[in-house]
């Protein structure tokens, strides 16, 4: 839950940690981190952070990444139990 003041959201509870298979799928497809970043319109550093679990992507980004690999989103990202 967040409280918006103008366009500045106050800090909210941290996002749940998502696990992912992005690195495995990317190497299977023969893509570099830069190539994947260009395809989903983010920076390479974001792909690096995402693959290592340091960053939780937005729903839109997760859907775009799953779309690149032509897999359902839940096969690419899942919640840590």
């Amino acid at each position, binding site marked *: 839950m967040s409280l918006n003041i103008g366009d500045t959201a106050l800090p909210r509870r941290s996002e749940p940690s998502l696990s992912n298979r992005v690195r495995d799928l990317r190497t299977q497809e023969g893509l570099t981190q830069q190539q994947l970043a260009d395809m989903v319109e983010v*920076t390479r550093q*974001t792909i690096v*952070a995402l693959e*290592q679990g340091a960053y939780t992507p937005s729903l839109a980004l997760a859907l775009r990444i799953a779309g690149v690999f032509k897999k359902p989103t839940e096969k690419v990202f899942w919640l840590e139990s």
Partner: protein
Amino acid sequence: MSAMEKSSWFEFLISFAVIVVVSCTFPFWGDAASGTFGFMGLFGLIPLFFRKRGKEVVVDERDLAIDRKARGIAVSVAWMALFMTLMGIVLYTNYSGGSSVSTRVLNWLLWIQLALFFCLKGIVGVVEYRRHRLAA
């Protein structure tokens, strides 16, 4: 280093340098030391970090999330620091028998709050990027 990270470093270094220089020169120059705050006009150069280079993505959602977090923390802390300082000044003035607060003090407080805001925004941004890099 992404454009937003460079911007965070730039904000932190400039505002920190300004605070240090003002602190060091105030005993010698008095109110004239507040002219140092003019160096914060260099923040006008920040858009240069975000110029487009071909099809390269300059700012993405992670950068915006970090910027939003840094801005939120900086606004909260700088605002509370200003408010608490103003409260302290009003209480001190009342209990010491004074009847008014000098506009000179208010002028300094506003400039210090602005420098504090950019310093905090910069350092939070830098720390967040470093945290992501270390976690990766």
